[in-house]
C-alpha cells in the first residue's frame, strides 16, 4: 500500500487528485494506494486510512480546505511514502516548497514536485540529500509540463553526452510571438489578447521577461547536463521590446522569432532568436519544443504541451509510476 501526501492544492494538485480518483487506471500501474493528506497554505484534510479526494476537491471548490494541520505538521506527524509537492513557485527563496522537500527527504519519503523554486535554489543539496536517504526526488513536471524531458534525457538517452539543450520552455511567450508572427500586431495588443484568454496571468512579467524559461533552463542544466548552475548564471532577455516589424523583416530572410532557452558549454541563455521558418522549434501557439543535441544519438526533438492542469499532473503521475510501477513494456 502506497501512502501519498499532496502538498499544494491549486490547479496542479487538483489535477493530480482528479487522476488519482481514477483508481482502476492508476492501480494497474502502481498497485494499491491511498492519499492520506491533502494540504495547502490555508488548511488540510488528513486521515491515516485515506481521505476522499472527491470531497477534497468539492471543499476546495467552495472555498478553502478546512483548518487543520499545516504541511510541516503533517510531515512531522504522519506516515506517508511519497509527497507530491505542488505549492506555488518562488524562485528567489524556493519557499515554502524547499522546506517541505527537505523535511520529506530527511524523514525518508520520496518527493515528486512540480515546483521549480526549490530546484532552482538548491538542486544540488536536494539531489544529494535524496541520494543519502536513499529516496527519489522526481521533478518531470517542473520543465516542459507534459513533455518527457528529464527522464528522456537521463534514462532514454543514457550513455550519451548531452552537448546542448535548446528550446521553447514558456508557452505564454510562444503564444505571443507566434500570434505577432501571424497577425503583425504589436506586443501590447497580443498581450491583452492573451490576458483575455487567460493564457497569461495578471502579472505577466514572470513569463515575458524570460524568468520562467530561465528557471526551467537551470533545472535542465543541473539535472541532465550535470552543470552546477544558479539562476544568476543565466543571461536573460525577454520579449517585451520586439516590434511587429521585426517579424516582417525576419520573414523576408525566411526567419521567424521565438524565445529560446539554450544551455551549452558556452553558458546559459534565454533570449529571442531568429529561427528558419521551417525549423522544428518554430512551433506555434502555447506549445513547448526542445531540441537535445547529444554526441551519440545526435538530435532529438520533443514537442508538447508545456502547461495545463491535467498535462502537468500527467508528468507527476509518470514520476509516481516511475518510482512504484512495474514497467509493463518489459
Amino acid at each position, binding site marked *: 500500500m502506497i501512502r501519498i501526501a499532496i502538498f499544494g492544492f491549486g490547479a496542479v494538485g487538483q489535477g493530480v487528485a482528479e487522476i488519482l480518483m481514477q483508481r482502476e487506471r492508476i492501480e494497474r500501474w502502481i498497485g494499491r494506494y491511498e492519499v492520506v493528506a491533502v494540504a495547502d497554505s490555508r488548511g488540510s484534510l488528513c486521515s491515516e486510512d485515506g481521505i476522499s479526494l472527491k470531497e477534497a476537491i468539492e471543499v476546495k471548490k467552495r472555498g478553502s480546505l478546512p483548518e487543520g494541520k499545516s504541511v510541516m505538521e503533517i510531515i512531522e506527524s504522519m506516515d506517508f511514502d511519497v509527497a507530491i509537492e505542488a505549492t506555488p513557485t518562488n524562485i528567489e527563496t524556493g519557499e515554502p516548497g524547499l522546506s517541505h522537500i527537505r523535511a520529506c527527504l530527511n524523514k525518508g519519503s520520496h518527493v515528486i514536485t512540480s515546483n521549480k523554486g526549490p530546484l532552482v535554489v538548491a538542486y544540488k543539496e536536494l539531489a544529494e540529500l535524496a541520494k543519502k536517504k536513499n529516496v527519489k526526488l522526481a521533478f518531470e513536471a517542473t520543465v516542459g509540463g507534459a513533455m518527457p524531458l528529464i527522464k528522456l534525457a537521463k534514462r532514454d538517452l543514457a550513455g550519451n553526452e548531452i*552537448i546542448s539543450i*535548446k528550446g521553447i520552455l514558456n508557452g505564454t511567450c510562444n503564444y505571443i510571438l507566434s500570434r505577432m508572427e501571424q497577425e503583425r500586431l504589436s506586443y501590447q495588443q497580443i498581450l491583452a489578447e492573451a490576458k483575455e484568454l487567460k493564457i497569461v496571468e495578471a502579472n505577466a512579467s514572470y513569463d515575458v521577461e524570460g524568468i520562467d524559461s530561465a528557471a526551467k533552463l537551470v533545472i535542465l542544466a543541473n539535472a541532465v547536463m550535470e552543470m552546477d548552475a544558479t539562476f544568476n548564471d543565466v543571461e536573460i*532577455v525577454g520579449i517585451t*521590446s*520586439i*516590434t511587429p*516589424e*521585426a517579424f*516582417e*523583416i*525576419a520573414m*523576408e*530572410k525566411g*526567419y521567424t*522569432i521565438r524565445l*529560446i532557452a*539554450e544551455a551549452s558549454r558556452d553558458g546559459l541563455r534565454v*533570449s*529571442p*532568436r*531568429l*529561427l528558419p521558418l521551417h*525549423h522544428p*522549434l518554430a512551433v506555434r501557439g502555447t506549445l513547448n519544443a526542445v531540441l537535445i*543535441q*547529444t*554526441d551519440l544519438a*545526435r*538530435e532529438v526533438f520533443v514537442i508538447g504541451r508545456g502547461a495545463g492542469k491535467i498535462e502537468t499532473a500527467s508528468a507527476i503521475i509518470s514520476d509516481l509510476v516511475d518510482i512504484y510501477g512495474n514497467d509493463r513494456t518489459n
Partner: protein
Amino acid sequence: MAIVSIVVELKDQPGQLLRVLEPISRLGGNILSIVHQRDKKTPLGRIPVEISLQIDEKKVEDLIKIIKSETIVRSYNEVRLIATTSIMLVGHIIHTDLGDTINSIDRTGFAEVVDMHISMPKLNEPSTAMVTISATGKEKLKEAIELLRDVCRRKGILMIEPLNEEPV
C-alpha cells in the same frame, strides 16, 4: 590565405587547362574546384572555366598576371569573406549612432556589415533592422557577433541572433 575565383576562356583543345593550372601550383595555390561551363561556349568556340583556389593573398596579383599572359581571363574576384549571418537589431538604432554601431564591425578588418534593411515606422519609436555580417571565417564571425553584442548592450539595443545550428 585568400580564396580566389577565376573565370578563364580556354580553347577546346587538349592541354589548355594545364597552362592555367601549372602557374597556380608553382605559386603554392590549392585548387578547390574546376567547373567547365560547356553550355556557355563563346562565339569563337572557347569554353569558360571557373577555377576556385586558395592562395597566399600576396601572390594573387602575380598569379593573375601570369594567367593573363597564357590565356583570356574573363573575371576574377577574391572571395575574402566566407562566413555570413543575419542579425536583427531592435531599438533606437539611429539615435544611438548607427554609423558607430556598423563601424564597430567594419573596423575589425576581419568582418563587415554587407547588407542592412531597416524599418522606422514612427519618429522616436524603436526601429528594427536586419543586418548581414560577413567575416573571414566562422571563428571570426563569432568574434564579430560578440563585439556587436557588447555594443548593443551598451546602447540598450535588443539583438536577436540566429539559432546556431551547427552540426554536432
